[in-house]
């Protein structure tokens, strides 16, 4: 027996297989959630509308990570870097070039797609913890790069850039916050539908084949290198759009807003929402936006500990995240119908 065969290890895939049907919600539930998202802002204050906008924006970023990790099985702790690039692209185009805010988003998406696709090339040789370290390095480097004196004319250096908030168009009588919310909602729905379709397509199946078994996938004729980098590109592109929207909503970009903490939050959002379950993104996003606030309100000094304990409770009760809750609920409803 050669040394190679002695060392052979059968390794379970790091990300468990999610059948593609299980990655989405049924039509009825989707419409109910959509209706709730459309009607809700009519009844609440502007600050809450702003928070709901951020909820959608982070949900987009979590969704992007979900496509990468849940879809193609690659880890990333570098999403904050793509988010930052998207945010800065939008901010620079709006403030220096004077472009319309809506037009900056596709450009942010394309630039981030290219960036992600290129970054995916060296990342091809890495997987698991090694990939996590590589993407982590990207996240650590990004704020420092944005601070460099070389780009200062464009990025505003440590000070960052202030972005003007857009008014509602066509003379609509709507507050800026509310307009931005509906604008974000429309984009989010578009991206969500596109993502669902992407994962159902030939490319989506290729992603999942790579996730479940890379060697088998390549034996079946899947171009592993192409689809892995493509997954990085798509994920980065969506994150970039989310970043652009984030810059418009917060009206401010600065290097220290996009540190590794953001990447870790997005990662937690994905885990809480359920890895590989796209609708869970919004649940995960709600977790990372609201739970730190709740923790802070319970105890100021121990907010970190309260947050940690809450996180532990969630992962103890539902190790598979919100997806698990949805599956249990579905089974219950099924039983009720039969009985």
């Amino acid at each position, binding site marked *: 027996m050669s040394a190679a065969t002695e060392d052979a290890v059968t390794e379970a895939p790091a990300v468990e297989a999610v059948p593609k049907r299980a990655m989405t919600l049924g039509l009825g539930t989707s419409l109910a959630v959509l209706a709730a998202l459309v009607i809700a802002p009519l009844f609440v204050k502007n600050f809450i509308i702003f928070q709901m906008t951020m909820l959608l924006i982070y949900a987009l970023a979590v969704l992007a990570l979900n496509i990468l990790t849940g879809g193609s099985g690659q880890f990333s702790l570098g999403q904050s870097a793509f988010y930052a690039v998207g945010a800065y692209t939008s901010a620079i185009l709006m403030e220096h070039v004077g472009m319309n805010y809506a037009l900056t988003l596709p450009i942010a998406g394309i630039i981030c797609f290219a960036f992600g696709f290129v970054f995916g090339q060296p990342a091809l040789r890495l997987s698991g913890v090694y990939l996590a370290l590589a993407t982590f390095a990207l996240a*650590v480097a990004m704020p420092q790069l944005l601070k460099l004196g070389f780009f200062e004319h464009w990025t505003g250096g440590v000070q960052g850039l202030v972005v003007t908030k857009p008014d509602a168009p066509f003379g609509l009588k709507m507050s800026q916050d509310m307009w931005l919310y509906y604008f974000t909602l429309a984009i989010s729905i578009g991206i969500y539908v596109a993502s669902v379709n992407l994962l159902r397509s030939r490319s989506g199946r290729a992603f999942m084949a790579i996730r479940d078994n890379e060697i088998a996938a390549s034996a079946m004729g899947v171009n592993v290198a192409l689809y892995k980098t493509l997954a990085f590109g798509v994920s980065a592109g969506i994150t970039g759009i989310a970043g652009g929207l984030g810059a418009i909503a917060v009206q401010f970009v600065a290097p220290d807003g996009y540190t590794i903490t953001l990447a870790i939050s997005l990662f937690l959002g994905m885990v809480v929402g359920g890895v590989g379950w796209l609708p869970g993104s919004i649940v995960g996003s709600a977790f990372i936006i609201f739970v730190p606030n709740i923790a802070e309100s319970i105890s100021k000094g121990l907010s970190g500990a309260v947050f940690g304990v809450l996180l532990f409770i969630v992962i103890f009760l539902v190790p598979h995240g919100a997806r698990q809750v949805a599956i249990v609920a579905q089974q219950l409803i099924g039983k009720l119908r039969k009985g």
Partner: protein
Amino acid sequence: MELFTNQVLAGIATGAIYACMALAVVMIYQAIDHLNFAQGEMAMFSTFISWQLMQWGIPYWWAFLLTLIISFAGGILIERLLFKPLAKAPVLTNVAGFIALFAIVNSVAGLTWDFTIKQYPTPFGSSPFLGSQLISTHQAGMIGVTVGLLIALYLFFQFTRIGLAMRAAAALPESARLVGVNTSWMIALGWGMASAIGAIAGILIAPVVFLEPNMMGGVLIYGFAAAVLGGLTSPLGAVLGGFLVGVFENLAGTYIPGVGNELKLPIALALIITVLVVKPAGLMGRPIVKRV
């Protein structure tokens, strides 16, 4: 040339810190197959315990010993209470658990001992070592302890029954169970040992970076990087990786124009990734062969 030797020496001195941490990282990776993001915070907490013991008037070495015992027990306790129930959960859920542990430990330490910077004593003194201004006796002592620890670990894993059982439990859990190894307790033992090694690392590092709840943030990143660079399966690789990262970082800071303190870390990480792209299992790691 003198500048070069000096920078290399200084790099080795900081590298010793990273090597210590990397050793703890590899230890736990061997036992549980994950990178523990809370490792640095656990080490910081242990260091605070030893500091507290000394404040209560216990002599250095007794405090050191007591801290090791407390950390060892604490590591096992954390595994039993928090991570054993998650053993069947997906990998990413476990990683979320580490992040939660990180938040809890950091916040509790901050509340108990507050965020002011504290001096921490060293048993080796801090006079220049062999007449060199760059390495103090403390740093030399630190290198000595790291190397000693490495040899002890090697002997433990190669020549004791329990070391063999731990290796078996980590490599092939199912087969290990069949031959009667209690794999569940081996994992707990791995946590305990990693926690104790982390405590040693913390106690050695504290005199250099000073004691405060966030002291491990930067060190842990370098420790991870060193462990990954050297190969996560090899304690020797981790220690070498630690020294290499220390030296790289210093040389990059000195010789590449425009690299201040801020860009040191990204450059060190970029270099490590370059190495990984060429040698994906790390410098001394064993490549894993996969079967379809």
